[in-house]
Each structure stands twice: as structure tokens, then as C-alpha cells.
């Protein structure tokens, strides 16, 4: 459609127009709802909060919203691939390229990451007996930076300039010579912004877990989700810094004429190295927290402590460590030579060993227990076979010479969806059903939860199992159509049907949310007969938790106290809690940096300078405020 714009007429594709109309309609409905129900105070409250549960809730809320958006992208992809020579809507050629780029980027950075970080925020402090994250202000900054990045990324689509070089942004395709449009600048700046937030979260989590555990909660007694969070945070610290550097160099290549990734002064392969030195640890950044969630869920619903706890912790650490030594297995076909190919093939195979240890330990946790099949447990049980299938194709992919065949085909697409959906997404669902009472105070409906699980898992296998075969039949990744003669029709149609089954399972989530909040009863402290400290505090967790502070004498302290029929011993002599404040500064920092990014993207440098200056001013303001002052004064008074 052509639209007149300041005297010029510009072409706007119909999908963009549809998105504008839909967003305006939804926005209007939301606005009316908020007005009618007088929800402004709550929104204002959340905009200024620094409380870990509330920030976690916002991470999860927006993670789910972006999940729906990126999931819609997936369904559009599947519609275009449903049959040979399909001409679905506008999604051919560049539109299709934008579609899979957005799908991948959003799912990784704006869905999986915030949902995991949201769960970490909501659960980890409660599991280790911390009253909040170590740096509540920084936590709010992290969240708003993530949201700023995500909104920026979504804006690109509404202005019909979505990034189109794949979520991996391979140079030189992603440089200004081949994609001069602003799309890939949006990619750079939105990932830069949200990546910064992620790095802050990692620092926050590390300090919280090291410094703010309950008395007696030694590292060797800590539940596995906090353990996974700790190790993941170290991975984030290194991996996201590398991503940040890579994006920085790419920005210079695109905007200021440098040639880091060009073939004469630099090399396009450098980008691949940087990207995968980030990208492969990123896979474990997504998987390890999920492993942690499953460990806690499986132990709770088997009524047994986790089998082989030391091995579980060690294997998380080992996976994290090895995760940094395998990046070039994404690059077997770029001609690094036989030596590099073999080295990375072998290190990749090695990762299977600690992963295998974990799988067997989960299985043996159930052995001899009483396995209660609740919705979170169901997701954990679905995870084991699904993830192992993804794991074995991972080992097959590590066989470098065979990888020449698999590489860049739908076999790989199948593999990484088996691992990422199999671990991360199922883990997120398990965690959400499990900790939902701690976040909102209500237990989600079990029956609808089970419907969600079965539709999702059946749809999932139906979608991705056939892709192993289409890949081996010769279907490359990132193609928008295929020929009748390729004999790919039946399998692709199966995938499309499966995808819609998965999509429909999300309707049960919506229904479940509605039903739970309309009719659900308030949950007690301990709805699942849990083992760890989070089940000792009220649901939803209050802003001042653990008063008085419990003393931990063993692993799973709450469980053993319940068995002994005792209450956990408590003390009033605990480390002072981090001080929460209400402040709008974090939001303003993120808005300033977003404005700066927009200025950079469109090379409106005045706007960029304004945004940057405003952010800098806010840093100064922040440096001069100390919310602890008041408390110091009180302490001094009481000492006198």
C-alpha cells in the first residue's frame, strides 16, 4: 500500500499496516481497561519498583508478550513453508528474511533470556534466604534496559525496516555494503542495550548469591537453581561482553567506514568467531538455569533429595567451562582446516559426558521416590526424552565430516529447537507453574496446565521431528520455498500442522490465567509440599521476606524440618537487607539510552547527543544519592 507522507508517497507492506492497526486497537482496549479499573497507581508503582519479585514479574510479563509475537512469526514462517511454491501473504524474499531474523533474535534475547532472568529474580533470593538482590537499583536498571532494547527492536518492524541478516548477522551480508537499510542498525543497538542490562543482572546475581545467603546456607547446601544461576552469571559476564565487542565493531563497519569484517582489511570470518564465542556459551546460558529448575522440580515431586548432588554441581560447572571451548563447531565448513575441525569436534563430544551425568542423576532421583505428576513435573518429564533427543543429534553434529552434510540445513534447525525448546522453554514453563504461587499468590489450574503440556509437546515433536529428515533430503535453512520435485511437501505440511498445535496450546495458558485469577483460591505458603526456603514465606512473597531469618543446617532445610515436625530455627542477627527504594531514575536511564540509540540508528546525531547527555546526567544524579543514608542515621541513633 502506498501512503502519502509529507508530500512524498512511501510504500508500506500490508503486514506492517495490519500490525499498526492491531497494536492501536489493543492499545486502546488496554487504555480503556486501565482507566476504568483505575490501575494507574499500580502501573506507577511498578515503574518505580526495585523489589526483586515485582521486577521478576515484569520480566516474565514482557517475556510472555514477546513470546507471542515471536511465536506468531514462527507460525507465519510455517505457513509460507506449508507447501511448495507457496505465496503466503507478503512473506517471500526479503519479508521472509526479516521474519526468520526477528523470530530468532526475539526468541533468544527477548523471550528466553527475560523469562529465565524473571524466574531467577522471583525465585533465587527466596531460595537462598536473601531479602532482595544485592543491588536493587541496578536490578531495575537491568530490567528497563532489557525493555528498552526489546521495544527498539520491535519498532524496526513498525517502520518497515526489520533486520534481515539472520539472528547470527553474518558479515559481510550484515555490513552496510549489502544491507544499507537501517534494519541491521536496529539489531545492533537493541542487542547492545538489552545486553548491557543482562551483564548488570549477572553481576547482581553473583554478588547476591555470594553475599546474601541465609546463615548456615553454605554453597554446598544451596539448591541447584541458584547454583545454575551463579554459574550462568559468570558465563553471561564473559559471553555478553564478547557479543558487545562484536556488535561495537560491526557498528563501526556499518556507520563509520571501518573494515573489521571486510575481506581486504579484515575478515568476515572474524565476525563468526566473535559471534560464536558469545553464541555457544549463550546456548548454555539458556540451558543451565533450566537444568537448575528441573533439578529442584524433580526433587520436590519425587519427595527425594537430588541424586548425586556434588556431581550435579560439578557437571554444571564443567558444561559451563567446556561451553567456551566449542564455538568453532558452528564453523566446520568455513575452512579452518583439519586440525581445528578435529579439535572442536572432540571438545564438543566431551560436553555430552557431564550432560549425560545430569540426565542419569535426574532419572535416579525419581527411582525409589514417590513421583507425583503435577504440571511442573509433567514439563520436567517431557524435558528428559526431548532434550536427550536434541543431545544425541548434538553429538551427531559434532562429527565434523558428517557435519558438512548437516550444516545449515533443517537438520540443524531441528537440533537446536530440540535443545532450546526441550530445555529452556519447557524449563520456563515448569518454573512458571511451580513458582506461580510465589509470584502471584495463586496456583495455576492443574487440568488446563496438563492440556497445555500435552498439546505443546505433541505439537513440538510433530513440528521438529520431520525437520531432521527434510534437512537430510537437502532442504537448507532460511529458504522461503522449495520445489514440488524436492519431495518435501508432506513433511513440511506435518511441521506446519504441528506448529499450529503448539500455538494452540498457548490458548490454554491464556484461559488458565483468566480462570486462575477469576476463580482461583489464595495459595498458602507451601502449596507443593516443597523442600527449600522459598516455601517458608507467604505467597506471594512479601517485600520484607525472612523476618526473622531462618538458620540453615542442611540441604533442603524446610523439608527436613517438616519431616522432623519442627520449625526452622530463626535468628534476628542476619546481614542487613539490601535497601529497596521507589525511584523513576532506572526507567529514565533506559529511556535516555533508547533515545540515544534511535539518534544513532537514523544518524540524527543531535538526538543521540541529547540522549547520551541525559543518561550521563542521570548517572551523576544516581552517584550523589545514597538511599542507605537514612538507615545509617537510624543505626547511629540506636547506638547512642
Amino acid at each position: 500500500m502506498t501512503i502519502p507522507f509529507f508530500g512524498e508517497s512511501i510504500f508500506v507492506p500490508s503486514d506492517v499496516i495490519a500490525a499498526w492497526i492491531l497494536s492501536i486497537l489493543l492499545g486502546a482496549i488496554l487504555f480503556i481497561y486501565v482507566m476504568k479499573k483505575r490501575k494507574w497507581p499500580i502501573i506507577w508503582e511498578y515503574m518505580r519498583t526495585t523489589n526483586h519479585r515485582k521486577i521478576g514479574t515484569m520480566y516474565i510479563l514482557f517475556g510472555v508478550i514477546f513470546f507471542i509475537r515471536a511465536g506468531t512469526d514462527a507460525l507465519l514462517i510455517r505457513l509460507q513453508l506449508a507447501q511448495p511454491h507457496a505465496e503466503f501473504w507478503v512473506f517471500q524474499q526479503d519479508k521472509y528474511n526479516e521474519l526468520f531474523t526477528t523470530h530468532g533474535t526475539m526468541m533468544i534475547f527477548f523471550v528466553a533470556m527475560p523469562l529465565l532472568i524473571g524466574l531467577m529474580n522471583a525465585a533465587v533470593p527466596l531460595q537462598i534466604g536473601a531479602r532482595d538482590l544485592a543491588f536493587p537499583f541496578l536490578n531495575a536498571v537491568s530490567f528497563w534496559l532489557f525493555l528498552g532494547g526489546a521495544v527498539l527492536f520491535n519498532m524496526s518492524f513498525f517502520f518497515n525496516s526489520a533486520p534481515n541478516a539472520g539472528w547470527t548477522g553474518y558479515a559481510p551480508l550484515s555490513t552496510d555494503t549489502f544491507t544499507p537499510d537501517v534494519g541491521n542498525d536496529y539489531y545492533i543497538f537493541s542487542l547492545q542495550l538489552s545486553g548491557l542490562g543482562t551483564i548488570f543482572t549477572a553481576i547482581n546475581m553473583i554478588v547476591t548469591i555470594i553475599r546474601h545467603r541465609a546463615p548456615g546456607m553454605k554453597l554446598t547446601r544451596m539448591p541447584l537453581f541458584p547454583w545454575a544461576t551463579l554459574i550462568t552469571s559468570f558465563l553471561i559476564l564473559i559471553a555478553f561482553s564478547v557479543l558487545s565487542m562484536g556488535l561495537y565493531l560491526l557498528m563501526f563497519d556499518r556507520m563509520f567506514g571501518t573494515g573489521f569484517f571486510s575481506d581486504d582489511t579484515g575478515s568476515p570470518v572474524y565476525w563468526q568467531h566473535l559471534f560464536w564465542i558469545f553464541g555457544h556459551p549463550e546456548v548454555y546460558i539458556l540451558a543451565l538455569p533450566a537444568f537448575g529448575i528441573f533439578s529442584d522440580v524433580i526433587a520436590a515431586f519425587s519427595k527425594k533429595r537430588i541424586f548425586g548432588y556434588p556431581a550435579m554441581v560439578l557437571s554444571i560447572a564443567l558444561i559451563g567451562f567446556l561451553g567456551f571451548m566449542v564455538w568453532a563447531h558452528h564453523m566446520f565448513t568455513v575452512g579452518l582446516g583439519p586440525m581445528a575441525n578435529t579439535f572442536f569436534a572432540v571438545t564438543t563430544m566431551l560436553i555430552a559426558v557431564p550432560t549425560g551425568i545430569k540426565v542419569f542423576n535426574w532419572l535416579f532421583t525419581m527411582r525409589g521416590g514417590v513421583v507425583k505428576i503435577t504440571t511442573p513435573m509433567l514439563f520436567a518429564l517431557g524435558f528428559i526424552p526431548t532434550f536427550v533427543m536434541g543431545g544425541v543429534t548434538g553429538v551427531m553434529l559434532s562429527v565434523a565430516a558428517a557435519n558438512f552434510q548437516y550444516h545449515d540445513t533443517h537438520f540443524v534447525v531441528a537440533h537446536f529447537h530440540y535443545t532450546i525448546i526441550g530445555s529452556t522453554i519447557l524449563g520456563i514453563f515448569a518454573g512458571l507453574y511451580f513458582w506461580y504461587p510465589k509470584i502471584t499468590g495463586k496456583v495455576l489450574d492443574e487440568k488446563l496446565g496438563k492440556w497445555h503440556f500435552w498439546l505443546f509437546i505433541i505439537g513440538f515433536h510433530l513440528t521438529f521431528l520431520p525437520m531432521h529428515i527434510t534437512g537430510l533430503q537437502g532442504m537448507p535453512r532460511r529458504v522461503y520455498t522449495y520445489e514440488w520435485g524436492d519431495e518435501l511437501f508432506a513433511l513440511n505440511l506435518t511441521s506446519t500442522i504441528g506448529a499450529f498445535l503448539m500455538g494452540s496450546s498457548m490458548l490454554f495458558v491464556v484461559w488458565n490465567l483468566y480462570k486462575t485469577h477469576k476463580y482461583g483460591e489464595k495459595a498458602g505458603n507451601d502449596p507443593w509440599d516443597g523442600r527449600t526456603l522459598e516455601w517458608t514465606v507467604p505467597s506471594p512473597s512479601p517485600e520484607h521476606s525472612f523476618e526473622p531469618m531462618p538458620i540453615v543446617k542442611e540441604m533442603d532445610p524446610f523439608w527436613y524440618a517438616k519431616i522432623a515436625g519442627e520449625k526452622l530455627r530463626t535468628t534476628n542477627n542476619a546481614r542487613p537487607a539490601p535497601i529497596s527504594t521507589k525511584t523513576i531514575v532506572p526507567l529514565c536511564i533506559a529511556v535516555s539510552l533508547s533515545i540515544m540509540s534511535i539518534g544513532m540508528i537514523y544518524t540524527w546525531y543531535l538526538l543521540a547527543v541529547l540522549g547520551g547527555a541525559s543518561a550521563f546526567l542521570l548517572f551523576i544524579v544516581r552517584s550523589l544519592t545514597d538511599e542507605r543514608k537514612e538507615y545509617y542515621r537510624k543505626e547511629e541513633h540506636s547506638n547512642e
Partner: protein
Amino acid sequence: MKKHFTLTLLLVLGLLQGCNVAVLDPMSETAKEQTFLINFSFSLMMIVLIIVFLLMARFVWKYRETDKNKHVIPKDVKGNRKLEIAWTILPVLLLVVLAIPTIAITYDQSASSPAATEKQAGEIHIDVKAQQFFWTFTYENGKESSKELVLPKGKPIIFHLKSKDVIHSFWIPSLGGKTDVLPGKELVYEIDNPKIGTYDGKCAEFCGVNHTKMRFKTKVVSVEAYHKWLKK
């Protein structure tokens, strides 16, 4: 879960029969070695898969919550050193078995830069130039073709790959794995002993708007027919 697995297997077998899977039906020596690795690693991994599936099915079924054991507090088991050592050592052994042929074939087949290879008699050298969104094949006598690549049967074919713009990837599934085609750096990849037939070739690395359309036909013909075609 057991049912789940059987269904999966049936689905795979059923689907495999219905279609022709290029990679599993190798038409050259190079592809044959790769297919061997695929089948070999697949069989080894099926062992792992079956063990996990069986254990899981058994544990979930046997220890599920029933009215009888509802209020039982199960005995705590911290771990079991022997078992844990077993499932550390056995996978390592399995991987060693897999690593040996992997290393051997990978060393033999990895694409290399041109300096490492010497020209030998009997080899067919073909320059492959990729650009958005087509291929140009230049043969030893200077002849060029674009939509189709013609190869003589039974010879070692050495491809010299180079890109004019972005990164592409050269792939003929029936004849062997892919090799990236980079700007500014030539890569050399060998396909040995192809059989007569017509095969699809495509670009496998996403390269822009018409990546999907960057396909070509590969015709493997007899040596005489090849020379005749070259002179045409």
C-alpha cells in the same frame, strides 16, 4: 513415555520410506564416507536414547504416586558412587569409539586453502565463483557454465571456491557435504569418484534476498561425454 517413543520410531520409519533422502543415498566416495559417519553415529546414539527412554519409562511407572504410597516418605539416597562412575566412564568409551572414525575422515576431508594441495594427474580442477545469486563454473579449458555443473564420472574433482560478494556455501547433497564460499579467500574442496546422474546443488549459507533461488543442476556424465561437452 514408552508409547511416545514407539510412536516416534514408527513415524520416522514411515516417513523415511516415503521419500528419497539425498544425504543417505550417497553418489560419490566422499558422500559415502560421510553417510557412513551419519549412520554410525546415529546407531551409537540410538543405544543411549533407548537406555534413557527405558529407564525413564520404568521409573516413572514404577514409582508413580498411587493411593497406597501417597503418604510414604521415601528413603533418601544421596548418590551411588559405582553407578555414577559407570555413567561417566561408559559414555567416554562410547565417544572414543565415535571419535576415531570422526578424526580419520575429518582429517581427510576438511576443506583447505590452496597452498596445501598439489595438483596431481587425473584430477579435474573446477573454479567455482559464487555471487548474489548465481554460480559460475569455470573448467580447465576456460569454458564457463552457470545453471549447470558438468562433471566426469569416477574422477577426483577439486573445486576452487571463491565468492565475489558475501559468504555463500556450495552444496550438492548427493555428492558430499558443503563448503563455504568466502570473499577474499579461496577454499579447496574435493569430491571423489562421483556416479553418473543428475543431482541438485544449492547455496546453503544465507546470502540475501534470493538465497532460495541460488540453485544449480549437477550432471555427472561419462568421461567421453564430459570431454565432448567441454569442447562444445
